[in-house]
């Protein structure tokens, strides 16, 4: 690492500071390198420690100033009036530290981060997995019941298409046969025969219509079924893709 790279890293590590503070700090270390001389560059870098460490020292001092800022300064006059003027009495130094200190984000120790990660993994295993399993089970169940309903509807439709014409034809035939025994009262016999023939005709018409309908809709139905299978396949491929990407990201972390 050269002095130039070192100063750049330091500048980045001090990003949270207000501009003038950061410029002052960078300038100090810039001059430090210049005064140490290029022949000492490597030694100075190794003795300074990492840019992050140096930045941490500066930020620590910064938060300390922020903490003592509300106290009355040494130049404060009255006990009551001293407090609000403390910042000015200090030459604005601690007041500035206090105001700008808000920019410094709270630092978490590595131990706490580690504990948080462990806790998250534990929660994920204890609550997340069952939840995930339940969600998957729910989706599968819903899909299955939807399929069953669809199949049932199709079956009822098919039954209606087949049964209705058959019933009509059968009842028409029965009426015709019955009319044979009613010639004692010709009017009712004719009426019954007419009704039976009507039913027969209606049944035949429906049967023809059904056969025609089946013939016409066979190809589109096949095509629709194929489309459904296709979509399911795509959905599964998508799921596998998502899981794969998730696993890769986990590996990356």
């Amino acid at each position, binding site marked *: 690492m050269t002095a130039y790279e070192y100063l750049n890293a330091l500048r980045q590590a001090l990003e949270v500071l207000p501009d003038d503070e950061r410029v002052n*700090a960078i300038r100090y270390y810039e001059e430090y390198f210049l005064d140490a001389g290029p022949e000492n560059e490597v030694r100075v870098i190794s*003795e300074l420690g990492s840019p992050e460490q140096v930045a941490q020292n500066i930020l620590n001092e910064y938060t300390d100033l922020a903490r003592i800022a509300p106290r009355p300064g040494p130049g404060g006059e009255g006990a009551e009036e001293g407090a609000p003027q403390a910042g000015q009495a200090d030459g604005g130094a601690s007041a500035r530290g206090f105001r700008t200190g808000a920019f410094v984000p709270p630092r978490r120790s590595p131990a706490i981060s580690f504990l948080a990660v462990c806790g998250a993994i534990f929660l994920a295993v204890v609550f997340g997995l069952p939840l995930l399993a339940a969600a998957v089970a729910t989706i599968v169940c819903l899909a299955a019941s939807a399929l069953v309903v669809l199949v049932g509807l199709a079956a009822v439709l098919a039954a209606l298409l087949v049964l209705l014409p058959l019933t009509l034809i059968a009842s028409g035939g029965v009426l015709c046969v019955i009319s044979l025994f009613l010639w004692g009262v010709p009017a009712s016999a004719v009426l019954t025969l007419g009704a039976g023939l009507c039913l027969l005709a209606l049944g035949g018409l429906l049967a023809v219509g059904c056969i025609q309908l089946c013939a016409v809709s066979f190809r589109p139905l096949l095509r629709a079924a194929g489309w459904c299978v296709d979509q399911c396949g795509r959905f599964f491929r998508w799921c596998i893709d998502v899981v794969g990407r998730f696993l890769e990201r986990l590996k990356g972390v």
Partner: protein
Amino acid sequence: MAFPISAALLDAVVLAVVSRESTYGYKITQDVRQVMDISESTLYPVLRRLLKDGSLSTYDQAIAGRIRRYYQITPAGLQKLQAYRADWVAYRDSIERVLGGRDVNDCV
């Protein structure tokens, strides 16, 4: 070293070093490092703190084709240094009394 360096002691030494002559960051660090075991990165926060509380001030001066920032002590800094000196003498004497190897009753 077994004895930790307190922030006050560091402030006092830096004030003493700067009070001898106007000087700059690198030289202050080297001077302090001759008497105290501190890392090179310790000094900037100290100088910044002393600047903020008005004990030190800076001025820029051209030197060898560039600008160097010099630190000098202010009257307030001198007062603070006097107070530190008095505290140090009292502290040193009282510690010396028990730790110096002489009998406690010898020096009253």
